[in-house]
């Protein structure tokens, strides 16, 4: 395995990068956050002061080197500072998903043995307080927003700003110790520990070193020539590796500005106001935005609608080529410019993408139409493929080689190989150190030579060298007649319809495939409104005969398209039902990063799966649901099961044999 020099210019830790940034870009904006309706601004040197104050404050509270300190909350500058302050005192930050339940938090806090917790607000403080009895190593908590917390017992509870004040007061006494600890950090000390969302089983703590984070940030920043002038919007969960790389790793490496939205609900407005130059979003966000645009265009005046349709058709024809720098006719170019003036420009502005130079999407497959829509507008949207264990980057698409069906070429510094069974392996300097307190899983995933199993099946396309991912390796199975079963492939095709939010396809070891469908409330709700269809609840809309008809059409169209692929034609959906509830992370059906937990869904809705295979026309079911505050209830429904037309494939099979 290639080992590079011990950091560039001795920059072997995030706190070291901070000090460089404070010296080099002292007056440049490092963080912005909208508060009370105004964008507040912190320069790199101000951020460094705040971080020092907090780090000193942590020392006054007795934080030791090697401690684990959990950080829970939505994206706020203060919490990013907390991460670096924790690193500065030689401790390890462990960001947690802020929407996790108290029990989920208890598992992680106990697993890492967190001594301190830095929580954003009362909600998070309450959750930790609820479970603190079970936490053997937990000692003290620091909170950011004092609202509702004034009357709490402050024996082990400290306000963020007070900790900083204590730190500032002790600067003379503790600064030498802080400096000593900062200097003791090297390329192999732990930078962060991130818990995987866990599509299977309990979350695992992925230990990432400074080398992992800084080398990955360096390579990926160079790949897209990111500069200190970039602006990003930090809105994805802080516990997710992507946010750590974009909002911390790359931001500290290149010195660009991290902007935090005012609240979760204002994200779209804030996006428009900031106009990021570098943007990351999972496919779902792009899908939702496109759905919103389309819904609003349906309601626009006929003149505007015609203009939109006319120029979008043109954009689809030449937009991607113009973006990739391919030759385009002079008249088409002129027409595209006019379209930009009348349609594309204003639309990009509304979406907040006017300044986007590089956009990435990853995590799930993105629908080709969605992908092309954004690219045809002139937004340089690309795909990357990565995972927590790789410090994100495994492959990514270089400018000019962007397609919706591949995930790109190996990122700089990453080696790739495909195993016999099709599983993708990689090794790089971003490769994680270990799973914390789980040598067994570490050994299962990473071999002694440093190759890491991704768990995904894929192949490298001949000619282009691009990687294509088929499915999760363990989800790829055989049907009872031996045909290949790749559920994700079919699910993605289904999900490309705006009406379908989520789909779960069954068929492993069965004679045919069936599916659960979740409708998209925004899209279907709007359709219902325009067609005068009254509904009182999600459940009622999901069970409406006309909704079922529409979904059936979608399923049948997908079947036709699946049938065209000789390898996967067995995966056509024979029967389906539309679920009465939305799959939800609170109910354990999705991971916190909103990925389907196939096995759990199969077990939880066993009655429904059986009904899909026993030809019954409908089924009555009761389901337990968890409300946001953790209480449980049940909902019941009678679901109609529909047969979908399939394209016969036996003929071609015989012919092939």
């Amino acid at each position, binding site marked *: 395995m290639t080992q590079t020099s011990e950091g560039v210019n001795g920059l072997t830790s995030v706190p070291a990068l901070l000090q460089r940034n404070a010296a080099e870009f002292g007056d440049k904006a490092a963080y912005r956050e909208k508060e009370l*309706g105004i964008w507040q601004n912190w320069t790199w040197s101000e951020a460094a002061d705040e971080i020092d104050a907090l780090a000193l404050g942590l020392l006054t509270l007795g934080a030791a080197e090697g401690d684990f300190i959990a950080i829970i909350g939505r994206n706020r500058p203060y919490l990013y500072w907390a991460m670096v302050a924790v690193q500065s005192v030689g401790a390890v930050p462990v960001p947690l998903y802020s929407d996790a339940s108290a029990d989920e938090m208890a598992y992680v806090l106990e697993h890492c043995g967190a001594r301190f917790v830095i929580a954003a607000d009362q909600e998070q403080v309450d959750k930790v307080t609820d479970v603190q009895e079970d936490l053997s190593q937990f000692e003290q908590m620091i909170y950011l927003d004092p609202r509702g917390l004034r009357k709490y017992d402050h024996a082990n509870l400290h306000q963020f700003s007070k900790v900083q004040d204590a730190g500032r007061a002790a600067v003379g006494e503790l600064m030498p110790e802080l400096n000593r600890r900062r200097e003791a950090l090297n390329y192999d000390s732990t930078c962060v520990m991130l818990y995987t969302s866990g599509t299977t089983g309990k979350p695992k703590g992925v230990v990432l070193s400074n080398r992992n984070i800084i080398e990955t940030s360096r390579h990926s920043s160079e790949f897209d020539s990111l500069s200190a002038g970039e602006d990003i919007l930090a809105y994805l969960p802080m516990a997710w590796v992507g946010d750590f790389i974009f909002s911390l790793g790359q931001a500290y490496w290149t010195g660009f500005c991290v902007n935090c939205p005012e609240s979760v609900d204002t994200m779209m407005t804030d996006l428009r106001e900031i106009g990021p130059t570098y943007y990351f979003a999972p496919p779902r966000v792009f899908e939702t935005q496109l759905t919103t645009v389309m819904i609003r265009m349906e309601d626009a005046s006929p003149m505007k609608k015609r203009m939109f349709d006319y120029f979008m058709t043109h954009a689809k024809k030449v937009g991607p080529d113009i973006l990739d720098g391919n030759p385009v006719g002079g008249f088409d170019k002129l027409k595209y410019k006019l379209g930009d003036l009348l349609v594309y420009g204003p639309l990009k502005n509304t979406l907040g993408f006017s300044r986007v130079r590089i956009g990435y999407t990853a995590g799930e497959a993105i629908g080709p139409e969605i992908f092309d829509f954004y690219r045809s507008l002139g937004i340089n949207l690309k795909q990357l493929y990565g995972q927590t264990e790789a410090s994100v980057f495994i492959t990514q698409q270089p400018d000019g080689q962007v397609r919706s069906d591949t995930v790109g070429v190996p990122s700089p510094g990453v080696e790739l190989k495909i195993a016999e069974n099709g599983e993708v392996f990689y090794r790089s300097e971003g490769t994680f150190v270990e799973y914390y307190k789980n040598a067994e899983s570490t050994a299962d995933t990473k071999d002694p030579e440093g190759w890491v199993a991704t768990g995904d099946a894929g192949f490298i396309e001949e000619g282009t060298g691009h990687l294509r991912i088929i499915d999760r390796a363990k989800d790829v199975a055989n049907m009872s007649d031996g045909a290949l079963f790749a559920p994700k492939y079919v699910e993605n095709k289904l999900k490309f319809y705006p009406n379908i939010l989520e789909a779960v396809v069954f068929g492993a070891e069965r004679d045919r495939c069936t599916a659960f469908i979740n409708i998209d409330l925004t899209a279907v709700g709007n359709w219902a409104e325009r067609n005068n269809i009254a509904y009182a609840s999600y459940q009622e809309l999901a069970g409406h005969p006309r909704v079922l008809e529409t979904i059936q059409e979608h399923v049948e169209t997908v079947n036709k398209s699946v049938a065209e692929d000789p390898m996967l034609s067995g995966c056509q959906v024979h029967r389906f039902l539309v679920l009465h509830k939305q799959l939800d992370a609170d109910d354990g059906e999705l991971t916190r990063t909103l990925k389907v937990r196939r096995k759990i869904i199969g077990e939880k809705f066993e009655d429904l799966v059986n009904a899909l295979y026993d030809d019954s026309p409908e089924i009555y079911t009761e389901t337990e649901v968890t409300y946001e505050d953790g209480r449980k209830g049940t909902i019941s429904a009678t679901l109609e099961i529909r047969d979908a037309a399939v394209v016969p494939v036996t003929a071609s099979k015989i012919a092939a044999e």
Partner: protein
Amino acid sequence: MLDSTDSYVTSDGRTIGGVVMEMKNITLRFGGVVAIKDISFDIREGEIRAIIGPNGAGKSSMLNVISGFYVPQEGQVMFHGKPRPQMKPYEVAQQGIARTFQNIALFEGMTVLDNVMTGRLNKMSSSLFAQAIWRGKAEQEEIENREKAEKIIDFLEIQHIRKTPVARLPYGLKKRVELARALVSEPSILLLDEPMAGMNVEEKEDMSRFILDVNDEFGATIALIEHDMGVVMDLSDRVVVMDYGKKIGDGTPNDIRNNQAVIDAYLGVAHD
């Protein structure tokens, strides 16, 4: 029994002060209809005081008496120990009393922010002319008022609809905007007329949390009308129960829960 000037600390650590407002033998008639009959009770500083009762019990009339909108034919409203004279609505507001309405009364065509800003109107002292040209004091006042409004918007978590016209909002959010407008005038007494009416469980929980936070954070005394018993019992320090214009109970939620007259009024009595 507490004296009118005594203060005490509740089990959750809030300090409840002396009596700020006292209704003395209030009777209110509309022509021949007696809406309120000889009711007396008091409101202490910093407490959450609920008025409950079945439909038509006279709760809203009572709130209108407290707010000074209705003048009772008999009895007196004592405010800080002194009888309160008949007042115009703006005079009531100047005394630090703000309210929300059962049927939302917002300016539908205006944005949320503008609606909230109207709550600051009686704190403005610059002249109409100064405001028209937006110079000197007017500018300074506007900045101060906007800051106050933004703090309330942040507090009630309605940042995402700041620039949205009220007419486009769902019911639950309109209720929150109305609360924001009442709060921004920095009231010492806040009157809430059925703050949870027509809300679903989740919205009710949100609203309950906001009411508790308002009481805690701003130290406001809150008098609220509500017919959702569960909410009232969880939220309030003391409860007055009305039925057919009469007071049938007054005390802590626990007292009320065990009060036979109240149980009868709510569950009905078998006449055999």
